[in-house]
C-alpha cells in the first residue's frame, strides 16, 4: 500500500518543529515498510519519551508509547510473546543511550529480532535542548553554557560491542540510503540498530551556530562518507555511514527460546 | 500428640535445611500430620551459621518459628555455643562427637554420637552426613517413622545417592539405639 496510508492523518499537523529531521526519518521508515509490503497489523511500534517517541502517534500500527528509556524493555515483552510481529523501536539519543542505555546493550546482547532506530539529534529537544550522551565534547546546550565536558558515545561501536548483529548509520540528508538501511534492518533476523543523524535546528543547531535545517543537512552531506571510503583515510574526522555489521549467523533470541521450550517439554514428558 | 519443636543447626553446606525439609515433608505427606519448616540464615551459601526449624503437630501450627526446641541438633561447635542455651528443659540435645565438644551445664538429655566418623567409615560420602543425623534424631525420638522419611528421601535425593542416603539413615538410627 502507498506509504501515506500507514499514517494516522487525523493527528496531523505533527508536533515537530519546522526543519526537524524526525519527519524525514518517519518518511524513510514508512517507505521501507511499504517496500517490504508488511501489513499494518503485523507491525508493533514501541517508543519511549521525547520528540522522537511521538512518531508512534502518527502511524497506523499497533503503537505503544511508553516510559523514557524503557521502549526496548516493553518491546521485548511484546516480541517474546508474539515473535511473528515486526517490532520497531524508534528512540531519541537520550532515550536510547542515557536512561535507556542498559536496556539498549542488553537487547543487543540477546540478539532479539527487533529494529532499534536511534534518531540522533545530539540533544534533548522535548525538555528544551539539554546536552545528551550523543552531544559532542565542546558542544553547547541550554544547560552546557560553558561547553559540554562529556564525551559522546559512538552508537555504532557500542551496538557492535554489545552484540547487535545489524548495525548501520545514515543521516536525514541521505534519505534514500536511510530507507534502504531501515528496510534491511527490519528484514534482518536479529537485533538491528540504525543510527540516523537527525537535525534539531531549534536547539542543537541554534546553540551550536550550525544555521537552519538546510545548513545542518548540508553539514551531514559534507562531513559524512560511505563506510570504508578513501575519504575517511584522508580525513579521519569524517563520520562513516552505511552498514557496519550484518551477521545473520548468531542465534536469535526468540528462536533460542523456542528451542528451550522444546527441550523443557521433552524433559517433562 | 505433644507438639514437637525441632532445631537443626550447623554450617551452611552441611545440609541441615534439607534434613529439616525431608523430616517435615514426611510428617505431612506420609503421616497425615501438620508441620512447618523455616530457617534463618546469613548471606553465605557455604559456611556461616545455619539454623533450620521444624514444628510437627496434629493441630494447625500458627507461629512457625521455634524459640525453645524439644529437640536440638548441633553439627558445629559454633552452632553448639550459640544455640545450646535455647533447649527446652528436659529436651534432647544431639551433637556430633567429632565436631562438637559438649558442655555439662545444659538442662537436657545430651547425646554425642560419632555420626560424621561413621558416615566416612561406613559409607565414605560426607554428603549424607545430614541424613545420618536425621536417622539418629528419629532413633531417639520416633517423631515420624523411618519408612515415612525413606519415602521423602526418594523425592529429594537424586538416584545415585538414594541408596547411600537410606544406608546413612539406618546408620544414624543404629547409633541412636546404642544410647542407654
Amino acid at each position, binding site marked *: 500500500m502507498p506509504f501515506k496510508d500507514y499514517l494516522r492523518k487525523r493527528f496531523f499537523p505533527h508536533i515537530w518543529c519546522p526543519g526537524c529531521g524526525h519527519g524525514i526519518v518517519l518518511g524513510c521508515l514508512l517507505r521501507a515498510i511499504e517496500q517490504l509490503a508488511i501489513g499494518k497489523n503485523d507491525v508493533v511500534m514501541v517508543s519511549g519519551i521525547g520528540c522522537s517517541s511521538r512518531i*508512534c502517534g502518527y502511524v497506523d500500527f499497533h503503537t505503544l508509547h511508553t516510559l523514557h528509556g524503557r521502549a526496548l524493555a*516493553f518491546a521485548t515483552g511484546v516480541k517474546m510473546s508474539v515473535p511473528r*510481529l515486526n517490532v520497531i523501536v524508534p528512540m531519541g539519543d537520550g532515550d536510547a543511550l542515557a536512561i535507556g542505555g542498559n536496556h539498549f546493550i542488553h537487547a543487543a546482547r540477546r540478539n532479539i529480532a527487533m529494529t532499534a532506530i536511534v534518531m540522533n539529534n545530539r540533544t534533548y529537544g522535548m525538555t528544551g535542548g539539554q546536552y545528551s550522551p550523543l552531544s559532542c565534547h565542546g558542544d553547547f546546550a541550554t544547560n552546557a553554557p560553558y561547553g559540554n565536558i562529556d564525551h559522546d558515545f559512538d552508537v555504532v561501536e557500542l551496538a557492535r560491542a554489545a552484540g547487535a548483529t545489524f548495525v548501520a548509520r545514515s543521516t536525514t540528508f541521505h534519505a534514500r540510503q536511510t530507507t534502504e538501511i531501515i528496510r534491511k534492518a527490519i528484514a534482518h533476523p536479529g537485533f538491528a540498530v540504525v543510527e540516523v543523524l537527525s537535525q534539531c535546528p531549534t536547539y542543537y543547531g541554534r546553540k551550536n551556530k550550525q544555521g537552519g535545517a538546510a545548513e545542518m543537512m548540508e553539514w551531514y552531506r559534507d562531513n559524512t562518507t560511505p563506510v570504508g571510503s578513501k575519504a575517511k583515510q584522508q580525513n579521519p574526522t569524517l563520520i562513516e555511514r552505511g552498514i557496519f555489521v550484518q551477521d545473520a549467523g548468531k542465534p536469535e533470541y526468540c528462536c533460542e527460546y523456542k528451542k528451550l*521450550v522444546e527441550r523443557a517439554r521433552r524433559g517433562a514428558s | 500428640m505433644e507438639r514437637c519443636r525441632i532445631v537443626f543447626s550447623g554450617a551452611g553446606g552441611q545440609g541441615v535445611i534439607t534434613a529439616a525439609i525431608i523430616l517435615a515433608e514426611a510428617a505431612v505427606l506420609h503421616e497425615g500430620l501438620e*508441620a512447618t519448616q523455616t530457617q534463618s540464615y546469613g548471606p553465605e551459601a557455604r559456611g556461616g551459621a545455619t539454623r533450620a526449624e521444624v514444628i510437627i503437630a496434629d493441630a494447625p501450627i500458627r507461629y512457625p518459628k521455634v524459640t525453645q526446641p524439644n529437640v536440638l541438633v548441633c553439627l558445629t561447635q559454633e552452632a553448639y555455643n550459640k544455640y545450646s542455651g535455647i533447649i527446652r528443659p528436659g529436651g534432647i540435645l544431639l551433637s556430633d562427637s567429632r565436631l562438637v565438644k559438649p558442655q555439662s551445664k545444659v538442662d537436657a538429655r545430651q547425646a554425642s554420637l560419632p555420626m560424621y566418623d561413621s558416615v566416612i567409615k561406613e559409607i565414605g560420602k560426607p554428603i549424607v552426613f545430614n541424613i545420618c543425623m536425621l536417622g539418629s534424631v528419629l532413633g531417639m525420638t520416633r517423631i515420624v517413622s523411618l519408612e515415612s522419611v525413606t519415602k521423602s528421601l526418594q523425592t529429594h535425593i537424586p538416584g545415585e545417592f538414594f541408596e547411600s542416603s537410606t544406608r546413612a539413615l539406618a546408620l544414624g538410627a543404629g547409633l541412636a539405639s546404642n544410647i542407654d
Partner: protein
Amino acid sequence: MSAGLKFVQGNEACVEAALYAGLQFYAGYPITPSSEIAEHLAVRLPRVGGTFLQLEDEIASICAIIGASLTGCKVMTATSGPGFSLMQEGLGYAIMAEIPCVIVNVMRGGPSTGLPTCPSQGDICQARWGAHGDHAIIALTASTLQDVFEITVHAFNTAETYRTPVILLLDEVVGHMREKLVVPEAGAIATVDRLKTSLKLGMDYHPYLPREDGRLPMSDFGGQHRYNVTGLFHDMWGFPTQEPSMVHGLLRHLVDKIANNADSICRYKEYYLEDAHIVLISYGGSARSALHVVENRRVRGERLGLLELQTIWPFPYSVVESKCANARYIVVVEMNMGQVTRAVKRAVAHPDRVVLANRIDGVFITPTDIRNILRLIQGKGV
C-alpha cells in the same frame, strides 16, 4: 503440579497458584527473598509453552510484562523491596494504561538494601503510594500457604477484572516457610479470563471506553484492532490528550473502578470476633503470631479475637470499623512502624484505643512480643 496434598515453600505455592490462574509470561531479576519464584517458574513455564525471562533489572522486568500483557498474556513479576522501588514507574504506567499484571513483592527489611534475608512488612505504604500521582491500587497478602495459593489466584482474577496491576505483598516468613498445601483440582477455584472485545474487523474499537458494567474489553496487540497505548492522559482511543474534561474523567475512572468495587476486592478472615474485648488486627506472616496468641488466650477464657486482613489496599475501612465496634482495645500486629495502624486509626470510632504491636529489627514478631503489649494495655506490666 497435580492437584492434591503437597509440602512446599510459600514462594512455590505462589508459583503453583499463578500457573493455576493461567500465568503465561514472567520476567524478573534475582533478589532475595523472592528468587525461588523465578527459579520454579524457570522450570515450569517453558513446559506449558509460557515465557520465562530474566532481564537486566526490575525496570525492564515490569516493562516487559506490560508489553506481554498487551498481546493477551497473563503476566507476573516478582521482587523484593529494592526491586519494588525500581518498578514504581512501570507500576504507574500499568495503572494509567490499564494493563493487567501481577507484581509479587516478598518483603524484606528496609529502607535501601536493608536486611536481605530477614522479614519485614515495611512496603505497605510504598505499595499504596510508591507510584507518583493520584491513583488507586490493589494490594493483597496472605499468611498460610493455602491462603497464598488462593490469594494469588484472586490477584490474577482481580487484575483481569479491573484491568489494573495488582500487588501481592508476601513477606520473607511466608515466602520461605514450608507447610502443607492442598492444590485444588482445576476449576475448583474460578479463574477470570482476559475480557476481549467481540467487535469485528471494521468496527471502531475503543480500548478505553468502559462498557456499561465498567469493564474495558481488550484487543490483543497483533490482532485486528490497532490502537495506541500511552502513559499520558488519553482519550477513548488511547491517544494523548490534555483536554481538562478528559483528564478529569480518566483519573476519576482509574480511582473509582477500584474504590467502587472495594467490597468485591476485599478479602479477610476472622477468628473469635463475636465477643472479643480485644481485637487484634494483622496480616501476612504477623497474623500467624497474632492467631497463636489469640488461640492460647481463648483457652484461658480471655476474650481475644483476630481480624486478618488479606486485602490491604483498598483498605477495608468499613470492615475494620464494624468488626472493632465493640472492642475495648485494638492491637495492630505488624512488622513495621505502624503503616496499617494509621489506616486502622482512620477506620475506627475511637482511634485512641488502637495500639501497635510491632517488631522492626529483622526478627519475626513472636507471640511473646504481642503478649507483652497485651499485658501493658491490661495494666499488668511486662
